[in-house]
C-alpha cells in the first residue's frame, strides 16, 4: 500500500491531523492525506452504506464511488458548514439512497407494466424499523424522541425510504410523516447540540 502514498505530500508521513486538514490537503491533490482520510473514515462510511444497501457487492461499489467523488470534489468542502465526517457521510447517504431508489424504480416499473393491480403487502415494516443502537450519545438522543418520530427517522435514514414510502409502509397520511420527520429532526438537532 506504500506506493499509493507515492505523492509524498505533507501528510505522507503519519502525523496527527484532523480530518478537516486531511480533506483540505486532499483537495490539493495530496494522496497521502487522502489515504489517511480513507483509513480513518472508511469503516464508518462503509457501515452506513452497508446498512442502506445490504448487498455487499453493491455497497463496495457505492463506497468506492463516494471516495472517488470525495477525491474529485474535496475543494468544495467548507469547514464553516459542517465537519469532514458529515461531508463524507452526506455524499455516502445520498449515493446509497439514489442506488436504492434506482433499483426500486426499475423493479416497480417492471411490475406496473406486467401486472398493474398486483397487491402490495402493506406490512413488511416492523423488522426493518428496529435499529441496533450502539452509541451512547445517540442512544440518549434517540430516547428523547417520541416513538413515532424515531420510527420515521429510522426508516428515512437507515432504510433510505422517501416520505411517501414511509407513509405507505406505516399506513399513515403523508402530511403526518412530514410533520414527524421535521419535528423529530428539530428535536434531534437540539439533543445533539447542533447549532444552526
Amino acid at each position, binding site marked *: *500500500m506504500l506506493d499509493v502514498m507515492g505523492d509524498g505530500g505533507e501528510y505522507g508521513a503519519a502525523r496527527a491531523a484532523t480530518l478537516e486538514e486531511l480533506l483540505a490537503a486532499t483537495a490539493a*491533490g495530496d*494522496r497521502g492525506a487522502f*489515504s489517511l482520510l*480513507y*483509513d480513518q473514515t*472508511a*469503516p464508518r462510511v*462503509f*457501515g*452506513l452504506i452497508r446498512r442502506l444497501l445490504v448487498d455487499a457487492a453493491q455497497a463496495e461499489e457505492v*463506497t*468506492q464511488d463516494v*471516495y*472517488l*467523488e470525495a*477525491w*474529485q*470534489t474535496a*475543494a*468544495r*468542502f*467548507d469547514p464553516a*458548514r*459542517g*465537519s469532514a*465526517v*458529515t*461531508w463524507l*457521510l*452526506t*455524499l455516502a*447517504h445520498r*449515493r446509497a439512497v*439514489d442506488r436504492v431508489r434506482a433499483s426500486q*424504480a426499475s423493479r416497480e416499473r417492471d411490475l406496473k*407494466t406486467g401486472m398493474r393491480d398486483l397487491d402490495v403487502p402493506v406490512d413488511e415494516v416492523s423488522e426493518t424499523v428496529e*435499529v*441496533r443502537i*450502539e*452509541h451512547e450519545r*445517540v*442512544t440518549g*438522543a434517540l430516547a428523547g424522541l417520541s416513538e413515532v418520530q424515531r420510527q420515521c*427517522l429510522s426508516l*428515512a*435514514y*437507515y432504510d433510505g425510504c422517501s*416520505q411517501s414510502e*414511509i407513509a405507505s409502509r406505516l399506513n399513515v397520511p403523508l402530511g403526518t410523516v412530514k410533520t414527524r*420527520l*421535521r419535528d*423529530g*429532526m*428539530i428535536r*434531534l*438537532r437540539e439533543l*445533539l447540540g*447542533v447549532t*444552526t
Partner: protein
Amino acid sequence: MNRTGDPTEPERQDASLHELAAAYALDALDEFDRARFERALAASPQLRAEVDAFRSAATGLSDALPAVAPPASLKTSLFERLDEVPQERAADASAAPSTRAEERQSGSSSIADRPSDGGSIDELAARRGRRQRTVLLAAAAAVVLIVGAVVGVNWAGPNGWGVQREIAQLAEAPDAERVTQQVDGTEVTLIWSAEEERSAVIAEGLPDVGGDRTYELWYIDESGAVSAGTFDVRDDEAWRILEGEFRPGVVVGITVEPAGGSPQPTTDPLVLFET
C-alpha cells in the same frame, strides 16, 4: 395548468420549502420535492444553513451504526482509479467549461449516477453559468441528431416531420441547449431555448405504456409541478414540444399517468432534467 402554490404568495412558498429542509437532509424527499427544493437551495443561504444543521444531526444517527471495515482490495482499486478522475480545484468551481461540456455531451448520467451536491449547492448555480459556454456545440449536436432521425418519417402523425421540423428549429436557436439521460437503457433528450421560451423532448426506446396510461411532461419550479402535456410512444420513439412556456432554470420531468394525464404527478418521475 395547475399550480400547487400561488406564485403571488412568496412567503407561503418559503414556509413550505423551509419545511422540506429536514427531509432533504435525510434524502427522504420524493423526486419532485427534491428537484424544487434544490432549485430553491441554490439561491437561499438560509435554507443552506438549515440543511447543514440537519445534516450534522443526521451524522449523529450514523453514530448508532456499527463501523464495518471494507475489504482492503477496495482501497487498492480506489487509488488505482484516482488518475482517471481529474480533481476540481478551488478556482475551478467556475472555470472548467471544457470537461463539463464533454460530460454533458456524452450525456449518460442517470438520476442515480449524477453527482450529489455533497453539501455544496453552489454547484447547481455554477453549472448553470458554465452551461452557456457549451451552447453552440450543443445546438450543433442536436441538429445532427435530428437530421439523422428525420429520414423515413411521415409528415403527419405524432412523430411526423411537422413536429421534427419544429424541434429542429428549436435546436437551431442561438441559445439552444440539449441534455440526454439514460432511462433503463433508453435515451431521453431534452432540448430547450430560453429565447424561444420552448423546450422539447425526444425519447427513443421508451416502452409503450398501453391505451389506459400515458407519459406526462412537467415543468417543475419552487411552487410545484405544472403539466406540460402528455405523449405516447409510437414505433419506439416520441417527439414532443412541451406545452406552456419554458423558463430558464425550471426542472423538466416525465411520469407515467392514467390516460388523459393527471393535474398533478401521481407517480415518481422516470427522469428529471435540470435546465
